[in-house]
């Protein structure tokens, strides 16, 4: 008989496991290249984090030196909200809680809890927030060393509270998202929330004055929320009211205690073996008639069948088509109330009514790019059928390109109608230039997207947003194509203006579209051979079991 290893051994083993998983991912050249891309992108973000930390430190120093507690509170609110919401925005909502997968081993409960917390601490967002809190402490120390004695426990309490809150939210979301349907509904709600966020600006402009009394009440209530309590702790301590400072600090601990209890309830249930798998409910037997598939005269029945399959997949991915709707919503928001405006003003991201349509089309194109550069992402488990069936992969890509093009056309029409309705007619010259440019950009993106989808695919799961990204190389390729499109479009536009007739720009776009069409056809003819040669890598990446 053996006994379970002690906690430190278990933690060491889990750390070793993570390390080996990381190292083994680097065995392939794609893995190494993806890491390189990740390092480059992280370096960019790291600079932002460092810079923001410097600004926060400076702000804290100023807030303490000039006795401006409101500034310190604002800074702490920023860190608090970033820590709370950014992980959700970046990694989305997920159903998996990592330590749960280790429960088949004799894991001690204390190890399980520590692992769940470590998941929160070793998160890049948490690391950034902890660094920011440290720079703020430094700023406070420089301004008044005496304030540091109260700032350290206050900030530590706030960090602990943030960590527990973050973990509790993830644990409870995991519970609610254990089933596919709830997961999709919550994911869709998340996207709707993001979409509704777009309305805050215009609504504030229009109805802001009505909301003012409510805002002041919220500010008053915010006094009892953690960032404000942390600042009150420091202020009371500095003012010599040790008892009040202790009482304020106790408030932070009470919050942490409640959150810790909520987290413990969930972790205890998970530890006891609560089944969070996709349990099937007994379903009502349905004997529905079987309808024949679609048919389109003049189009290969195989392409039609593939198109039908891809469209059904899209329509069953609530989050997918809400993302596709996003550009349309943004257009509605951006053009809200612009019709008949005598002096169109510069808004957050649009210059004037004549640019609404081209900007809207550019945004729509960007959403399509996400699909086109990883077009096999959702075919995962079914992909082997496309290799054992007597079809060429050319048909597979044609069907996907057709679907993406049709979505683009539908959205461009919608954007056009909305812009005309909301901001007045777009000059016909602008419409012509935009459509010619969009045609070229679409063809170029489909051509590059077809190749990148075959060379750098990344499996994605429907109805789940958690940690789902295209491969780093695909993202880099897509970025390169978009930079090329933007650069060439700008050059063509300014050259034609310099020549005195922007129609040349349109002719240039159409010429480029013609050349790109030939390249697109050429790539399509190569696609079957490439897929056949790369079938092993494609099946390994896309059809691997979860």
């Amino acid at each position, binding site marked *: 008989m053996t006994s379970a290893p002690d906690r430190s051994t278990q933690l060491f083993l889990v750390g070793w496991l993570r390390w080996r998983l990381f190292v083994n991912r680097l065995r392939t050249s794609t893995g190494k290249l993806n890491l390189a891309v990740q390092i480059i992108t992280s370096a960019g973000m790291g600079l932002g984090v460092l810079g923001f930390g410097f600004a926060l430190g400076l702000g804290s120093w100023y807030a303490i030196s000039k006795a401006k507690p409101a500034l310190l509170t604002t800074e702490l609110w920023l860190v608090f909200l970033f820590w709370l919401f950014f992980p959700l925005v970046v990694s989305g909502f997920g159903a998996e809680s990592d330590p749960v997968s280790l429960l088949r081993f004799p894991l001690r409960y204390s190890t399980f809890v520590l692992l769940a917390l470590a998941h929160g601490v070793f998160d890049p967002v948490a690391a950034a927030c902890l660094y920011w809190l440290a720079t703020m402490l430094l700023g406070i120390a420089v301004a008044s060393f005496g304030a540091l004695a109260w700032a350290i426990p206050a900030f530590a309490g706030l960090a602990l509270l943030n960590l527990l809150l973050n973990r509790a939210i993830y644990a409870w979301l995991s519970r609610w998202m254990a089933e*596919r349907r709830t997961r999709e509904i919550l994911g869709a709600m998340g996207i709707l929330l993001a979409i509704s966020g777009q309305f805050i600006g215009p609504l504030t402009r229009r109805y802001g004055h009505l909301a003012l009394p409510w805002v002041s009440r919220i500010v008053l209530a915010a006094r009892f929320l953690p960032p404000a309590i942390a600042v009150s702790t420091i202020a009371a301590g500095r003012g010599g009211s040790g008892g009040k400072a202790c009482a304020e600090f106790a408030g932070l601990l009470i919050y942490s205690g409640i959150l810790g209890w909520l987290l413990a309830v969930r972790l205890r249930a998970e530890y006891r073996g609560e089944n969070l798998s*996709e349990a*099937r409910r007994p*379903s009502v*037997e*349905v*004997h*529905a*008639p*079987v*309808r*024949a*598939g*679609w*048919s389109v005269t003049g189009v290969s*029945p*195989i392409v*039609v*069948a593939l198109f*039908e*399959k891809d469209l*059904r*997949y899209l329509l*069953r*991915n609530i989050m997918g088509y809400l993302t596709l709707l996003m550009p349309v919503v943004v257009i509605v928001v951006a053009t809200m109330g612009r019709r008949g405006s005598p002096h169109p003003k510069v808004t957050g991201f649009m210059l004037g009514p004549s640019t609404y349509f081209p900007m809207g089309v550019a945004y729509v194109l960007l959403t399509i790019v996400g699909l086109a550069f990883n077009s096999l992402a*959702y*075919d995962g*488990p*079914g*992909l*082997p*059928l*496309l*290799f*054992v*069936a*007597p*079809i*060429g992969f050319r048909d597979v890509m044609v069907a996907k390109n057709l679907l993406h093009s049709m979505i683009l056309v539908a959205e461009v029409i919608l954007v056009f109608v909305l812009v005309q309705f909301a901001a007045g007619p777009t000059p016909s010259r602008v419409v012509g230039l935009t459509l010619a440019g969009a045609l070229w950009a679409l063809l170029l993106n489909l051509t590059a997207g077809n190749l990148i989808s075959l060379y750098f695919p990344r499996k994605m799961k*429907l109805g789940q947003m958690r940690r789902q990204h295209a491969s780093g190389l695909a993202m880099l390729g897509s970025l390169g194509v978009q930079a090329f499109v933007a650069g060439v479009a700008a050059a063509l536009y300014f050259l034609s203006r310099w020549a005195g007739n922007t129609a040349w720009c349109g002719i240039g776009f159409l010429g480029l579209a013609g050349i790109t069409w030939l390249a697109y056809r050429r790539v399509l003819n190569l696609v079957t051979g490439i897929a*056949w*040669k790369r*079938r*092993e890598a494609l*099946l390994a990446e896309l*059809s691997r*079991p979860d």
Partner: protein
Amino acid sequence: MTDLAVETNGLSRRFGELEAVRKVNLRVEAGQFFGFLGPNGAGKSTTIKMLTGMLEPTAGQIRILGLDLAKDPIGVKSQIGVVPEGLALFDRLTGPEYLIFAGRMYGLDRVTAAERTRELLDFMGLADRTKSLIVDYSHGMKKKLAMAAAVIHGPKVLFLDEPFEGVDAIAAGTLKAMLNRMIARGATIFLTSHVLEIVERLCSHVAIIDRGELVAQGSIDELRSGVSARREDGQKLSLEQIFLEIVGGEPAAVPELSWLE
């Protein structure tokens, strides 16, 4: 001369340093119910993946119904049906949608695909789940659906990778009946299975692969007499005994684990 449904010459597959399949020469005659056996990691799945075009051989030639797979992959694929290891299901379609899709991928017109879909759903006992997405099916239901998709176009050769794994006795009975009917109509079935009793009951011929090499091939009776000739007890051997004799895995030879005594 007999028609060969599956024929390989010097079929090999290397993964870096590892030669997973080495110079395999398979001969499967048309109309045979053929079992492809081997211990775990012997090269069964690698071989079946190469035979169905999902994996490129490092060397050697594959001919299915006389057609060279490398030269005419589309011609070969239209004659075969496959239930691969992962079942190859598009799980966000419903059962009928998937079967119609699979039928059309094999060139059936939409009406025929729909008619055969109805028939297959009834046969497989899936007709009452026509609205459910495949992702919500049980494992056994998924297996039956994958089998239905593999036969919807009436293939002449059917490749099945572990078709009875995770299937209950009732469903297994249905599948066996269907496979026997296909054999009666002249189709060839090539299956891998770990359940040797099933192989013995269904298959007329078997081949055994061990460590990437084909170590035996022929009818079960031929293999039995070959092995019996080497033994002195004269008893009639089961396929399991033949298998263990050939791959050298006699239970008595298994060493004991010191901490399990």
